[in-house]
C-alpha cells in the first residue's frame, strides 16, 4: 500500500529567495523544487523566457548566414565568372557607426540598470542613449543604401556577377535584421515610457543588437577576402 506524504510542498514566502537579479521579476523562478522527495538536478531558477529565447533566435540567424556563407564559398569555387569587387569605402564608415551604436546601447543598458537599482531617479538618460543608438542604426542602414547606390553607379547590379549578387543579398538580409533591431529599440523606448520594461527584454534586445554588430563585421570580412 502506498504511503501518503503528509507534509505539503513548501511554499516560499516573498523575499525568502532572490528572484533573478537586480530586483526585476520576470516570471522566472517557477521551476522551484518541491520540498518533498529526493530531487537532485532540478534547477532552482528558470531564466525568463526572453533570456533563453534570444539565444534561440540568434542560433537560427546564425544558421541562416551559415547557409549563405556556404553558398558563397561553393559559388565562388564553382565557376570562373567570379569578379571580386572592390568594396565601397562607405562600408568602413558604416562599420564604425554600427560599433558606435553598440557602445551607445551598452551605455544605455548600464544607465538603465542604475535607474532600476534606484541609483538614478530618472529614465531620461538611458532613453537618450537609446535614441542615439536608434539614430546611429538608421545612419547605418542609410549608409548601406548609399553603398548600393555607389555600386549601381559603377554598373554593378544584383545580377551583374556572382560577387555583386552575394553582396546585395547579404547586405540586404543583414539590413532587414538591423531594421528588426530598430523596431526592438522603439519597443523598449515605449516600454520605458509606460514603465513595463523587463530586464530580460532589454538584455535580449541588447544582445540582438551586439550580434548584428558582430555579424556585420563577419560579413564585411567574408565579402572583403578572396577565398
Amino acid at each position, binding site marked *: *500500500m*502506498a*504511503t*501518503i*506524504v503528509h507534509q*505539503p*510542498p513548501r*511554499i*516560499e514566502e*516573498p523575499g525568502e*529567495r532572490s*528572484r533573478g537579479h537586480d530586483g526585476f*521579476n520576470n*516570471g*522566472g*523562478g*517557477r*521551476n*522551484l*523544487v*518541491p520540498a*518533498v*522527495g529526493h*530531487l*537532485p*538536478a*532540478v*534547477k532552482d531558477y*528558470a*531564466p*525568463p*523566457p*526572453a533570456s*533563453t*529565447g534570444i539565444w*534561440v*533566435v540568434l*542560433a*537560427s*540567424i546564425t*544558421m*541562416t548566414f*551559415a*547557409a*549563405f556563407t*556556404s*553558398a558563397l564559398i*561553393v*559559388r565562388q569555387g*564553382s*565557376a*570562373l*565568372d*567570379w569578379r571580386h569587387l572592390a568594396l565601397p569605402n562607405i562600408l568602413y564608415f558604416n562599420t564604425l557607426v554600427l560599433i558606435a551604436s553598440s557602445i551607445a546601447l551598452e551605455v544605455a543598458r548600464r544607465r538603465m540598470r542604475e535607474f532600476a537599482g534606484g541609483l538614478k531617479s530618472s529614465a531620461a538618460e538611458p532613453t537618450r542613449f537609446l535614441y542615439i543608438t536608434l539614430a546611429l542604426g538608421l545612419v547605418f542602414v542609410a549608409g548601406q543604401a548609399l553603398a548600393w547606390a555607389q555600386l549601381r553607379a559603377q554598373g554593378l547590379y*544584383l*545580377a551583374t556577377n*556572382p560577387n555583386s*549578387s552575394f553582396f546585395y*543579398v547579404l547586405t540586404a*538580409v543583414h539590413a532587414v535584421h538591423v531594421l528588426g533591431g530598430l523596431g526592438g529599440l522603439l519597443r523598449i523606448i515605449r516600454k520605458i515610457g509606460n514603465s513595463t520594461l523587463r530586464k530580460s527584454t532589454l538584455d535580449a534586445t541588447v544582445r540582438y543588437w551586439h550580434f548584428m554588430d558582430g555579424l556585420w563585421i563577419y560579413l564585411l570580412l567574408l565579402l572583403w577576402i578572396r577565398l
Partner: protein
Amino acid sequence: MHDTSAHAHAAQHTAPTSFIRKHVFSLDHKVIGKQYYGLALVAVFVGMVLSWLMRIHLGWTNFAIPGLHLLTKNGAPGDMMTPEFYLQLMTMHATIMVFFVLTTAPFAAFGNYFLPIQVGAEDMPFPHFNMMSFWITFTAFLVLMASFFVGDGPTLGGWTQYAPLSAVGQVGGPGEGSGVVLWALSIAIFCVGQLLGSLNFITTTLDMRTRGMSLWRLPLSAWSWFITSCMGLTAFAVLMPACILLILDHVAGTSFFVPANTVINDQLQPHSGGSTLLWQHLFWFFGHPEVYIAIVPGMGIVSHVLVTNMRKPMLSHRVLIYAMGALAVLSYMVYGHHMFVSGMNPVSSLVFSFPTLIITIPSTIVVLIWMGSLYGAKLRINSASLFALGFISMFISGGISGFFLAQPSIDIMLHATYFVVGHFHLVMGVAAMFGIFAGTYFWFPKMYGRMMDEKLGKIHFWFSFVGAYAIFMPFHYLGLAGNVRRYQAFAPEYMQHLIPLHKFITIAALVTGAAQLVFLYNLFISRFKGDPASDNPWQATSLEWSTPTTPPPHNNFGEKLSVVYHDPYQYGVESSSGDYVMQTSPEKASADDEA
C-alpha cells in the same frame, strides 16, 4: 511567492471575449494547436485527392477523369492527363503532405496544444509569435494553393525542386515560371512560421516548466517536440535562404544555381557559372532533418500512448530520449544519401553512407525499447494503441529498406525507381500519419471533452493498416522490377506486365482513402455527439490529464499551477487511485522514481 507569480500570470492570461480573439487571432496555444490541426486536415485531404488522381491515371492511363480539366489550364485536354500535369500533381502532393501535414499536425498542432500543458505552463512564453506562426503558415498554404490558378499552374519540379530545372523559368515547362516562384515563396514563408513556432517550443520546454518538473520528468511526447523544435530551428533557417536565392534566380536574373551554357528546350540560358549541386546541398541539409521533424513527434506521441495503454513504464525512459536526440544530431550528417546519383563526388557518397548506416542504430534502439516494453504487457486495445502499434509496424517495414538504400552501390540501381517511393511513404509518410491518428484518438477527449467512437476507430485502423501495406509493399517490388518513378505512363515493354499491379495499387489507394472518410466522419460526429469524456479517461499520469476541466480552461490549470512529484509514467504501482500515480499526486509512487 509561487502563488503570487501564478496569480500574476493568470491575470495576464484573462480569457478573451470577442469572437476574433477567441477563435481567429487567438493567443491561446490550445486554439492555435486546433487551428494547425484544422489546416493539416484540409491539406491532407487536398493531398490525398491529388494522389488519387495520379493513381487512377497510373492504373488506367486512357481513362478520362471527369472534370480534370477544371484543375488546370493546359494540363488535361479532354480530361486526359498530360505528363507535365502528372508531375505538377506529384509536386503538389509531396509539398502539401511534407510541409502542411507531416510537419504541422504531429509537431505544430499537438505540440502547441499539449506541450505547455505537459510542462505545466499557462501558455507559451511568446503568444503573439505563436499566433503569427499559425497565420504565417496559413498564408504559406494559400500562396502554394494559388499556384494552381496562376499562369500555367503549379511547378512540376518535384518537392525537391532540383536546379537547374527549377531555376530557369518558363522554358523549363509548365509551372516552372510563376509556379516555382510561388512554391519557393510559400516555403520561405512557411520557414518563418516554423521558426517562430520552434522559438516558442524551445523556450516553453526550458523556461516554463512548473515546480518539480525537471527535464527528465517531461513525458516522452514533450521531449520529442523539444527535440523536433531544435531540428526545425536549424533546418528551416537553412531552407529559407535557399528559397530566397532560388527566387532571385527567377526574378532578378542572378545565377546561383544555373551553370553556364545550360541549354533547355533548345534554348541557351542567359545564366552563367551557377552550381546545381549547391541547391541540393542546401535543400537536403534541410530535407533530411525534415524527415525526422515528421517522424520524431510521432515517436514521442506513440511512446506516450503506448506507455499509458501498457500500464507500465518503458524499459528505459532515458535511453529512448537519448536515442531520439541521437537521431536529431545524426540527421544532419546523413543528408548526402539523397544525392548518391546527383553527380556528387563518389567519395562524398561513401562519407555520407557511413553515418546513414549508423543512424539505424538509434532507430533500432527506439524500436527495441518499444518491443521490449510491450513484451509481457497487458496492452489495452483501443484505436489509439492500435495506431501506435501500426506506427511501429510501418516504421520497421519502411526502415528495413533504408538499410539497402544507405549503400551507394545499391542506391544507384534503385534511386529512380518505386523502391524509394515505397521506402519513404512507409517510414515517413504512413508511419507519421499513424502517429497523428494515435495522437488524435488519444487526445481528442481532452481537446473536445468527448470520446471518439471506438468502433469506427477500429474500422478506420484496420482499413488503413491493411490498405497502407497493400499500397506501398508492392512499390518495392515495382522498383526492383525496374519501374521508374515520376513517369505517368508505362510505354516500354518490360513495364507492361506491371500494369495489373498498378491497377491493384490504385484500388487499394481508393479504398484506403475512403477509410479516411470514416475517420473524418468520426471526428465530426464525436465532436458533437460523442460520449462525454471524464478529465482522465485513460487513467493516465501526465499533466494534461490533471486539468481542472475538460477541455482545459483558458489558463490550463485554473487558479494555481500544478506541482510535480514524479517521473511521468508511474504505472503498475499500487495506489489509492488504482494502478497509477499522477505526476501531480504527492502520493509516494515506486522506489525507482529516479528524478
